[in-house]
C-alpha cells in the first residue's frame, strides 16, 4: 500500500542563536540562521520512513511564509520529499494561529487527497502548538498531538501520545493529522542525490487567490488575537560572587549567606 502524505513545516530563526541587545531591549536577528523547525524535521522524517517502507508513497511539504522559505523547502526535498509548496502572499502576513490554519488548510485542500498529515508539535519561535490541531479542525479530521511512536497497517494507525507522566496508546483511521515530538525519531541528513534533485525541482508558490481562501479569514486584520505590546524582560540584576580561596571557604561562605538571609 502506498500513502499520500502531507507534511506541514515552518522556517524559523534558530532561537539558540538569538540574543537581545541589552541597551535597546530588541532582538538581534542579524546573522541568525534560519532553519527547518526542529519538530517539523521529526514530522518529515516519519513521513520518509513510511515512504521507505511503502514504495510509491508520496510526500508533499507545505509551508507558509516569505519567499526565502523556499530554502527550507529545498532542504526538505533534499531529505527526500517529493513535492514542496510555499503559500506566500502579503495578504497572509501577520496571521495568528487561527488565520494561519485557515490558509494552510485551504492550501492542503488544493493539494487534494491525503492519508496522513504530519506536523511538528510546535515551532521554536512562537511555541504555541496550536496550528496543527487547528488545521485538523478546519479540515474536519481527527488529530493526535505529541506523537512519540507511530505504526500503520492498511488504513489503521496506532500511535503513542506522550503525556507528562507516561503515554496513551491510541488507534485511529486515515485520514488524520499527527503532530510529532523529538522522541518520535532522528531526522536524516540531506543526501547528495537529493540535493541535486532539490536544485532542479520547481517549488510551487501559491498566493491567496491560488488557494481560494476567504480573505476575511487570513492575515493580520482577520486574526482574532492581536499583539498589544511586545517587550523584553528586564534582566534580573546579578547578585554577589561568593568569596573564598578554597572550595571549603566557598561552600561555607555560601551557606552563611543563605542562612543570614533566612533562605535556608
Amino acid at each position, binding site marked *: 500500500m502506498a500513502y499520500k502524505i502531507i507534511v506541514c513545516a515552518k522556517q524559523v530563526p534558530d532561537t539558540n542563536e538569538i540574543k537581545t541587545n541589552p541597551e535597546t531591549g530588541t532582538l538581534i536577528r542579524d546573522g541568525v540562521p534560519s532553519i527547518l523547525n526542529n519538530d517539523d524535521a521529526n514530522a518529515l522524517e516519519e513521513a520518509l520512513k513510511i515512504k521507505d517502507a511503502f514504495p510509491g508513497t508520496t510526500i508533499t511539504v507545505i509551508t507558509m511564509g516569505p519567499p526565502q522559505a523556499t530554502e527550507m523547502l529545498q532542504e526538505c526535498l533534499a531529505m527526500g520529499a517529493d513535492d514542496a509548496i510555499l503559500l506566500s502572499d502579503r495578504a497572509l502576513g501577520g496571521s495568528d494561529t487561527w488565520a494561519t490554519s485557515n490558509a494552510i488548510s485551504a492550501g492542503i485542500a488544493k493539494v487534494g487527497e491525503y492519508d496522513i498529515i504530519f506536523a511538528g508539535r510546535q515551532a521554536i519561535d512562537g511555541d504555541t502548538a496550536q496550528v496543527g490541531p487547528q488545521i485538523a479542525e478546519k479540515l474536519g479530521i481527527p*488529530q493526535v498531538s505529541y506523537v512519540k511512536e507511530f505504526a500503520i497497517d492498511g488504513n489503521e494507525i496506532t500511535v503513542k501520545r506522550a503525556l507528562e507522566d507516561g503515554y*496513551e496508546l491510541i488507534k485511529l483511521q486515515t485520514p488524520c493529522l499527527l503532530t510529532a515530538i523529538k522522541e518520535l525519531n532522528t531526522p536524516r541528513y540531506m543526501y547528495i542525490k537529493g540535493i541535486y534533485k532539490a536544485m532542479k525541482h520547481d517549488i510551487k508558490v501559491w498566493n491567496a487567490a491560488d488557494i481560494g481562501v476567504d480573505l476575511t479569514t487570513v492575515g493580520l486584520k482577520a486574526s482574532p488575537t*492581536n499583539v498589544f505590546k511586545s517587550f523584553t524582560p528586564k534582566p534580573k540584576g546579578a547578585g554577589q560572587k561568593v568569596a573564598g580561596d578554597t572550595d571549603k571557604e566557598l561552600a561555607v561562605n555560601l551557606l552563611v549567606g543563605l542562612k543570614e538571609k533566612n533562605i535556608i
Partner: protein
Amino acid sequence: MAINFDDVKNIWVYAEQRHGKLMNVALELIGEGYRLSREMPEGTKVCGVLIGAEEDVKPLEAELFAYGADEVYTLASPLLKNYTTDGYTKVLFDAIEDIKPEIVIFGATHIGRDLAPRVAARLNTGLTADCTRLDIDMNNYINFLEAKTTCNTKGLTPDDPKKALLKQTRPAFGGNLMATIITPRTRPTMSTVRPGVMKKREKDESLTGTAIDVKVNLTEADIRTQVVEVVKAAKELVSLTDAEIICSGGRGLGGPEGFNLIREFAEKVGGVVGSSRAAVDAGWIDHSHQVGQTGTTVKPKIYFACGISGAIQHLAGMQTSDCIVAINKDPDAPIFEVADYGIVGDLYKVIPQIIAEWDNADALLAAAQK
C-alpha cells in the same frame, strides 16, 4: 463571530482531571481566575469546568469550591472516561456556545494544548498559548511593565479603551521576547497558562458554590480515536513545580555520571533534581527533569544551577526563583547575570563541600558573626 459580546459573562477554568484526580494547574487557575474575576464587573464569577466520567468528576466539585470556584459546571458521560480530542472538544464547544463565558483558561498541559486549539478553532475565536501572566486591571499591568520589563508605558493609561480586555502575557523566541496578546473582537477570550506559574488559593473546605450538571450530547460515532490504554511511565517521580529546592545539572557535569553527585546533593538539601536542555539532549537524564522554555517552569525557594551556562531558554524557566545559586567554572557564564549567589569553581569540588557543611549552617553563621 460565534458569540455576541453583550451576552458573555464569567471566567471558566477547564478543571483538567486524569483518572479522578485534579491536575495541580487546575487549582492554580481557579486561584488566578478568582483574582481576575474580582477585577471585572461586580458579580463576575470564576467557574470550574469538569469533563469526564461521572464517577471521576463528581467527587471533584467540592475540591474546586474549596479552592475558590463560585460555580462548577460538570459535563459527564461514560464516553468521556478517557480524554479524546473529539469527545472533549464537542462537549466543551457545546457548553461554551450555550452558556457563553467571557474568558476560558486551560492549563498548558499536553491535554490542554490539544483541546484548547481545537475548541478555539471551532468557535472561531482567539487563543493565546502558554501565558505566564494575565491582567485585567490596567494599573496592575502598567506596574508590571515598569517593574519587570523594558517596555515603554507612555500612552498607557488606566482609562485605556482596552482596559477591560484580558491582557495575556507570554514568552516567545525562547523567552528572549515577551508579548502581551489581546483578543479584541471575538468571545470568549481563550488562553492556555503554564503550569506552576499562578498561585492556588488557600484551601477552605467550608466554602461551597453552585454545582451545575450540563447535559452532554455525545455519541460513540463522534469520537474517531480509540484510547487503547493509558500507561503511567515507571520513572522517577519528578515534581519540579512543587519543589522548594531544585538542584539542576547541565552540560558542565561532563557526563551522565555527574547526575549522581546532583542526586546526592538534592537528597541532602531535600530538593528535586532538575536539568538543562543540554543535559537532556545529551541523553544524560530524562526529559521530565528539564527546566526551561521547552521543559518545566519552576519557582522554588532555592535553585542551584550546577554546570549550567544559562541559555536564554533555561533562564526563561527558572529566573523567577526566589534565590538562584550558580556554580560554574566559567566566570563569564550568563547564569551569573541572574544568580543571587555565584560561585566560580569546580562543581565536583565545591558541591561535596556544601553537602558536608549543609547541616552545620547555623554554627557557621554564628561563627561568622563573632
